[in-house]
């Protein structure tokens, strides 16, 4: 809390947030149509496709690492636990914040709690996201309690952690897959490259992969930003697990495409074919090659592979929710600059929140006292 360095990077991030706030005011004054390019034939755009679909997937590291440490008792992964939980918590808060902007009547976001429709996938997603955010808040609360020095309270609440983590894993399994189930109701709209009854399973497996990849990427970025040593052997382990998860994902995807006879679409020079190929080559094949050849040895190979996995899952979620839905919706959609600005702002908010928390709360194990920790913007 001594001198705070104000860097150009930080000013840019806050500027983007300010811009999004102005767009938010316009949205609530003049309606969603005044800031987005959404239409009656294309009612979900970048905010749902990226900020919600992708945001939830990228925050999956929280449940995978928590499962490894608390369910699998793999104690050596403990150093990665808190950064992953912080990522998860910040991610879900941002998803909800974005939803509040995108919903027509955000002040009714609690309605699914009392107005039930068990036949609705959205109903299930709403419940799971609300409950899992609560789980993440309680897990995150541990870190806050430790910072506040409430050791007695900390010891009591620590006992509740294993069942809480089990609940978190179940909730995550349900809603990560259900984001895919959402699209099972549009067999006539979603392109056959992505429409498959296995969509929920593919969404779940890719969420596990991208959750792990995000832990690697963030460990690397925060190691640079906070000038800490990289937990390389641990991250290499994660790389190996990611490779296995990606192999399963690729296997199911290929078999499914062949069985449904949809593989030929991937080779056509259509918009869908190109985006699908990008997703598979850049997001699955190249990272798998890097992880099998280089990831076992060099930090650089590992981080590039993890970065590509993140890119691939981002692209997959955008493909399912936007690119793959275009032709079947008989319309065009390109996000407006204001939609893009809000999406960039939510990434900026994520970086600012993560770096503030990492600087002020005991997130990384070796600096438990937190006295000299300072948040520096990424350079």
């Amino acid at each position, binding site marked *: 809390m001594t001198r705070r360095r104000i860097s150009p990077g930080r000013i840019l991030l806050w500027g983007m947030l300010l811009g999004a706030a102005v767009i938010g005011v316009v949205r*609530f*004054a*003049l*309606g*969603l*149509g*005044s800031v987005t390019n*959404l*239409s*009656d*034939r294309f*009612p*979900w755009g970048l905010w749902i496709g990226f900020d919600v679909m992708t945001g939830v997937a990228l925050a999956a590291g929280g449940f995978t690492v928590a*499962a490894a440490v*608390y*369910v*699998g*008792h*793999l*104690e050596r992964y403990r150093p990665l636990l808190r950064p992953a939980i912080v990522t998860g918590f910040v991610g879900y808060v941002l998803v909800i914040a974005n939803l509040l902007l995108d*919903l*027509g*009547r*955000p002040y*009714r*976001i609690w*309605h*699914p709690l009392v*107005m039930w*429709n*068990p*036949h*609705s*996938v*959205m*109903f*299930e*997603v*709403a419940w799971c996201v609300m409950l899992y955010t609560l789980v993440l808040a309680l897990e995150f609360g541990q870190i806050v309690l430790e910072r506040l020095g409430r050791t007695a309270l900390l010891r009591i609440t620590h006992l509740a952690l*294993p069942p809480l983590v*089990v609940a978190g*894993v*179940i909730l995550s*399994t*349900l809603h990560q*897959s*259900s984001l895919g*189930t*959402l699209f*099972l*109701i*549009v*067999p*006539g*709209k979603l392109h056959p490259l992505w429409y498959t*009854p296995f969509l*929920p399973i593919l969404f779940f497996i890719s969420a596990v992969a991208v959750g792990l990849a995000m832990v690697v990427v963030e460990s690397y970025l925060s190691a640079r930003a906070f000038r800490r040593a990289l937990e390389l052997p641990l991250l290499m382990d994660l790389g190996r697990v990611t490779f296995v998860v990606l192999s399963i994902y690729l296997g199911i995807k290929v078999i499914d495409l062949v069985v449904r006879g949809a593989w030929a679409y991937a080779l056509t020079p259509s918009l869908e074919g190109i985006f699908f190929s990008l997703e598979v080559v850049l997001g699955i094949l190249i990272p798998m090659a890097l992880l099998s050849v280089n990831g076992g040895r060099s930090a650089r190979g590992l981080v590039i592979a993890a970065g590509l996995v993140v890119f691939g899952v981002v692209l997959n979620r955008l493909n399912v929710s936007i690119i793959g*839905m275009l032709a079947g*919706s*008989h319309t065009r959609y390109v996000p407006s600059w204001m939609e893009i600005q809000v999406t960039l702002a939510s990434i900026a908010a994520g970086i600012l929140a993560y770096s503030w928390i990492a600087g002020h709360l005991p997130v990384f194990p070796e600096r438990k006292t937190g006295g000299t920790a300072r948040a520096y913007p990424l350079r």
Partner: protein
Amino acid sequence: MATRLTRRQFLELAAAAGASVTVLSAGRPALATTSASGHAVLIDVARCIGCRSCEAACKAYHKFPAGEAADLSPTAWTYVRTQNLRTPRPHLNLGADGAARRTIKTQCMHCASPACASACPVGALRKTPEGPVTYDAGRCIGCRYCMVACPFQMPRFEWRKPLPVITKCNMCAERLRRGDGPACVAACPMQALQFGTRPAMLAEAARRIAGDRRYVPAIYGAEEVGGTSFLYVSDVPFEELGFPVASREPLPAFTWRVLGKLPGVVVTLGAMLTAFEAIARRRNEQLAREKEQTR
């Protein structure tokens, strides 16, 4: 793909449907009008001359500003779409003058198993036993999943309002409760719109197809997405008129196949994780003990 039947099958269907209606209304008169399939509107594309009286009646009844609409909107719950034909065919009522195009009344199809109602997280959209799929604006959170889910792209959204709602045709549900038909049906001067119980409308559709060789032997809505309460007959194939090719299976079944398994997944996963946790904990304790002994 619209259900294709031979002319002979149609005659049989017409007879059977007519007979079942008679039996139902004779045995249980109260149920005959509000049976599981409820009411339906039959739209005859071959008879429609595109006068748009239905559109005007809808606007007048729902107190929307008058005027012709180019698409469905929050103030146009129905509109008459014009489809130019690839190969001109003489119009049933207009002859050669109307050969180049057909006009198609468009509105919510009021599916028997509506994708929108199954998609809605708060149950704002419901299929009523009388036939209409109704919308309760007081529940709606504005997530627009109903719009994504609808195979016919019928729901509309108030994009220019700060706190918007979903809008769509409600089949004049309040008029139906009073025993009247929808406002649009009464306004049609060509009898291109007809209202009645769904079995009766299916029988009437079959009768028209059987009685005039110019009709395409198909009833759009008879089996599409599990059946709809708005039915179409036409003298031009439905694909050529731009009707979406829909599966026969009701769309809610596609998501329910997964959702229905989730309680089992929760129990199995919970048991597995708990067991796995116990095993992992004991293994760790054993390792720690062994380490102590070797020390």
